[in-house]
């Protein structure tokens, strides 16, 4: 997988031999570029329309298409202040508290599975024991168990605890009316993220040089020291890729937050989904709200795209 990303094949055109160049002429480059640029523009227009609308005054946004903005530009920031702080969504704090919720869900929701999966991946890759292979395949297979299969029993487990007969083995995780209500969402996200995380990190870790591990053992390091001092630093690129991936996944999630959350823990997405019904009357507010919800993913994505792509490729390209 590192071979794929380490070599940004931008130079592919120039440095190759003549026959390949001839092949490359089968589409002449201007045509190819033209088609790709047209598709790229088509892919961007919907988002661009949303972006433009979020800066238009309410009356304009409701009475005319966003494309007329350029004939008669008038820009306002009031949609954003209204949505963030004002009663734009019939809630005292606007969207700001939902924005906070999204962050409070997404940061632990990315860190916890990351830590647990890194440990498990190391054990499966470098602590030899009977059945390791089978556990690995079982975890790989769990990747595709739909979250939907777990929702009802897990929700009941959280709300009533675990009983054997009449004996309460594990307590309920209610935490009602406190900020610890977020814990249920973190736990759910951690559980659902583990299969993919372990799979990706295991793939990376198993490719680390064997000599290095053996040298560490020879020096008398136990597995915990090897893990902390050798594997963690070396696996950092893979860990970073998955961290970004998981953060975006949790930030963008709707189903888990709806199922395991309460009205106090609603993230932006859940709030926006509820508000879509009022679409007709407040286009300018909904577009501003949607853009706020996309802001952090877009920043993360644009600044860390390389890592994101690397994580994606690790999961799907052979190698």
């Amino acid at each position: 997988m590192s071979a794929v990303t380490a070599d940004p094949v931008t130079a592919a055109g120039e440095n190759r031999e003549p026959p390949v160049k001839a092949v490359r002429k089968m589409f002449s480059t201007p045509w190819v570029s033209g088609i790709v640029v047209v598709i790229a523009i088509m892919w961007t227009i919907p988002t661009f329309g949303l972006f433009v609308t979020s800066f238009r005054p309410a009356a304009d946004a409701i009475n005319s298409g966003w494309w007329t903005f350029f004939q008669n530009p008038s820009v306002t920031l009031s949609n954003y202040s209204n949505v963030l702080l004002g009663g734009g969504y019939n809630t005292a704090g606007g969207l700001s508290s939902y924005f906070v919720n999204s962050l409070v869900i997404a940061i632990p929701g990315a860190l916890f599975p990351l830590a647990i999966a890194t440990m498990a991946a190391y054990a499966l890759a470098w602590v030899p024991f009977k059945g390791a292979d089978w556990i690995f395949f079982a975890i790989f297979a769990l990747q595709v168990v739909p979250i939907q299969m777990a929702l009802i029993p897990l929700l009941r487990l959280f709300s009533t605890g675990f009983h054997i007969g009449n004996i309460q083995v594990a307590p309920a995780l209610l935490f009602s009316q406190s900020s610890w209500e977020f814990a249920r969402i973190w736990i759910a996200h951690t559980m659902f993220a583990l299969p993919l995380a372990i799979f990706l990190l295991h793939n990376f870790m198993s490719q680390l040089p064997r000599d290095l591990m053996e040298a560490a053992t020879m020096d008398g390091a136990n597995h915990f020291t090897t893990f902390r001092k050798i594997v963690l630093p070396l696996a950092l690129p893979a860990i970073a890729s998955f961290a970004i991936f998981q953060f975006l996944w949790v930030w963008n999630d709707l189903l888990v937050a709806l199922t395991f959350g309460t009205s106090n823990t609603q993230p932006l997405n859940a709030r926006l989904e509820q508000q879509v019904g009022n679409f007709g009357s407040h286009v300018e507010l909904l577009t501003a709200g949607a853009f706020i919800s996309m802001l952090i993913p877009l920043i993360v994505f644009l600044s860390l795209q390389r890592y994101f792509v690397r994580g994606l490729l690790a999961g799907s390209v052979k190698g």
Partner: protein
Amino acid sequence: MRTSTDWNTVLQDALPKFGVAATAIIVFFGILLLVFLAAGYATGKIVRPLTIAILLGPAFVLLIIGLVIPAIRTVGLSFFDSNSINFVGTANYKYAFTDPDIHRVLINTAVWIIVTPILATALGLFLALLIDKMKHESIAKSLIFLPMAISFVGASIIWKFVYTWRENVPGVNQIGLLSQVVIWLGWKNPPNWILWEPWNTFLLMVIMIWVQTGFAMVVLSAAIKNVPGDVLEAASLDGATGFSLFRKITLPMVRGTVIVVLTTIMIAVLKIFDIVATMTGGNYSTSVLSNEMYTQTFVQGDAGHGAALATILFACVIPLVVYNVVQLRKERANR
């Protein structure tokens, strides 16, 4: 602009929440560190089992409690009534396969699974081939890939706006791009897109294709670049050109990746909930299995129906899992 809240109130709301998150993170990593340090002192025969238990244990327990047991229980619940008290045999499945509404849901799901992955992958492959020939690819590539970063809810809002419809009468301006474009093209009275059965399902699929094409493009583009130049060269010396070169050399060499992309998108499509929930809430004959499962369980309060639908969903995924596991084992054997 009059605002009903100021930053102080926002902080008052935010601080305890961040406090809880920070506490949880510190406690979590603190415990890990302590366990690691303590376990370092262990000696003798206990070391290996202890190491495995500490490193693998948390993941193992969470997966058993969070996925394995719930999945088994869901299968069990699908044979019980709405409150999970009385055994009802296969009544829930009978309902799922005979009720006309659910019939529609199953057909929609099938159409989603077939159309979306194929179109997204084909488009992604086309773009990957074109981009392979471009000198400056990165901006166009990023723009097409960008929707991957946007949530399905966000994407749905973007497209809901594109699909907004108003009756085309004098004095009324369209604000939805699709309506305006077809009016410009000469379609006098376009339908209300979201209510336009059965085509509304396809309009929802456009959103998924819009999101997944970038994924397919990036992954396939990496695979195409991995095709060795000398293979292409040898083939072209043998007289293969243009499309036949693609069909005979490039396509077979990226076939594995194409299948991985197809199955990945298929699995994503099967689980798709957000798009349907945001766009229509499953109304106007657009519901799919995962959305219907949520509605039956948490809106209608019928755990039996919900569990049966989830189990059907799972059954659809199983062939894909088996296929992927077989592929993975082959791949590992080749190493």
